[in-house]
């Protein structure tokens, strides 16, 4: 009788272990990646791996903020706001490759690879500037509203969008002639711009929503207002927007609300709110599109979210005031 009981217990334990081991193998079956984080206050870039461990801390400049991939795979372009310059960082060599200076109040950056151009918002100067990356020469300066932040260039390199936080406007420029084409009125404090198929998504930080415009007609198509249960809408302060092409989802970091929202990009429906750290701004997606990384600017950490279960996996220490993230294979 007792032997039978022990046998049964052993059998159950064995099965449990098999499941656990299988789960662990399954859990690690996610491809490796390297991510770079800019930290505004500690003035460095940190390299992290798939497990969220910091592999390198590289002091870089004063107040590094916006970051984008450069023309070659190992190059990353970073806006150094307080140094009024933009640097090209070599992530393989972990050193600064070159720099473009002066770039007054450089805040956010976008690159059009085919034409080798860099687009920068100049926060204090109420303009955006365009540079030729191979020669580091200034090509154009475009007047915007006050406090320009988000900047995006269409894939064909023909249209540039710049959001001005203070003005509540998105300026649209012809990116070949650099003439202003149009001014789109937005809700309060437009922050980031993301292009998705034929749509322009703009986060309105003080308007607690994302507004969706048609890229061609520039007319407003729709909006997604954030109001998780237990919160007042005015506490929602969305900033970064990131799309996942494989699932047709948009991720929106809700700032002071300490959550990230998952939005069905076609139905415009919020499917999930996930609790992260304080002042969630920067967003990154792993190359296999299975992990979302959220930077928490006020708790100086970042959260890895498993997109299958839509649950946070772990939160790890970043530098001081993490701002932007870029993920590489």
């Amino acid at each position: 009788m007792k032997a039978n009981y022990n046998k049964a217990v052993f059998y159950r334990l064995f099965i449990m272990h098999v499941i656990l081991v299988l789960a662990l193998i399954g859990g690690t079956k996610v491809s490796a990646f390297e991510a770079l984080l800019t930290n505004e206050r500690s003035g460095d870039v940190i390299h992290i791996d798939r497990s969220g461990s910091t592999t390198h801390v590289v002091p870089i400049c004063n107040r590094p903020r916006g970051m984008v991939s450069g023309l070659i795979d190992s190059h990353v372009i970073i806006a150094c706001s307080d140094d009024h310059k933009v640097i090209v960082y070599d992530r393989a060599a972990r050193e600064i490759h070159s720099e473009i200076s002066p770039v007054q109040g450089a805040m956010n950056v976008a690159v059009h690879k085919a034409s080798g151009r860099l687009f920068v918002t100049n926060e204090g100067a109420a303009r955006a500037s365009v540079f030729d990356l191979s020669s580091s020469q200034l090509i154009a300066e475009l007047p915007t509203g006050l406090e320009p932040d988000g900047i995006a260039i269409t894939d064909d390199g023909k249209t540039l969008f710049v959001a001005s936080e203070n003005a509540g406007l998105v300026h649209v420029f012809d990116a070949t002639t650099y003439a202003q084409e149009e001014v789109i009125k937005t809700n309060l404090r437009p922050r980031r711009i993301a292009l998705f198929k034929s749509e322009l998504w703009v986060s309105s930080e003080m308007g607690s929503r994302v507004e969706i415009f048609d890229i061609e007609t520039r007319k407003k198509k729709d909006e997604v207002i954030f109001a998780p249960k237990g919160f007042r809408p005015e506490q929602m302060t969305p900033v970064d927007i990131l799309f996942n092409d494989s699932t047709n989802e948009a991720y929106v970091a809700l700032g002071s609300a300490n959550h990230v929202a998952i939005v069905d990009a076609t139905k415009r429906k919020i499917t999930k709110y996930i609790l992260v750290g304080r002042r969630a701004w920067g967003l990154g997606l792993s190359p296999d599109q299975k992990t979302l990384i959220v930077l928490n600017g006020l708790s100086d950490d970042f959260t890895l979210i498993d997109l299958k279960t839509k649950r946070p996996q772990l939160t790890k220490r970043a530098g001081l005031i993490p701002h932007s993230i870029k993920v590489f294979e």
Partner: protein
Amino acid sequence: MRLSIILFIAVTSLMNHSIAANLHLAIVTASNAETPGRGRSFAGILTRVERPVRRAVELALFESKTSFEAFGIVPELQVIDMDATKPLDEQLKAIRSTALTILDLPRPEFIEAAKILDQKGQTIVNVRHPDTDLRDTLCLPSLFHTIPSERMYFDALGQFLIYRGWRKVLIVHGPTEKDKVRTKILEQSLKKFGADISDLREFTLSHHPDDRDKNKPEFLTGGASYDVVAVIDSARDFGRYIQFSTRRARPVVGDVGLTPVGWHRALERYGAPQLNERYQLFDEDKPLSASEAMSDQEFAAWSAVKLITNSLGTVDSIAETVNPRDILAHPGAQVDLYKGTRGSIRKWNNQLRQPILLATGDAVVAVAPMPKFLHPKHYVDTLGLDEPESRCNLR
């Protein structure tokens, strides 16, 4: 009466509107008015910055330039300096009936002028007086308040004290009528959030030995048990000497020490550093030093203009002249206050709802509403007179 009209250069490309509309703004001041005790102590020592609000209004117009272009609007600012020797109502006729009028006058003249303009249905903004009664018993439908009320300031302080667990409060107040009125409001705020008032003590400026219980901070704050001392001293006079001289080693809050304010130069978040820098530098002819920031009154004037320019999209069609009243009456009227949440108008008493900062000279220690102070409708409405308590019901 000196009347100057500043026409802002309208470099408008008028992209979306073929016809230009006017937006009229007016500042009514009394630059020569005697305002005893206003930020000035004995022997001319300045204890508080009191500046005219015009620079802040001009900053708001400067910031709105691209919005004006996008909406096809030409702003015009009228500045009217009142002459105390001439009748008020005659001078008020110089204000355009369609103007958003910032009425920056001493309290008696303010009330008189507000009543006259309200009768005519002109839109008036109070940027100077936090006096709670102006929102509660005066209650004029055309009068809007962008400066926080005393109740908002003291509610913020009350929440902070409870949040920190400093429940026992010793109140030390000045002898003036204004001090007594404000002390009553502080008591209401402390009671609202469940603090205990250990005692109420009145100070005197007299140095006479017979008055030592009232003029020596050590005695004034002795013989009581308390977690914190709250000082009400509208003139910023004696109160300055209480901190570091209390009988018990306790923090000092209120008009000195940790103070509730509408705006501060050391606010690091919500884009505030950009606004502060712009305030210092936007006027190239008259730059200010990096230590200068908008006073609460200036911030209120800036907020009033920005409330209009941030909400231009609420009115479908803009006629020849923008009616600021239409915008303020719209439920969608809102303003980006650089304080972490948008500002809007409380319909029952025309008060601009906004967070309140709790600050020392060089740091913003907290931003109220404090965590866990919840409101069923709007989370900032835990600060100030809420609809059920308000005697003013303009809705």
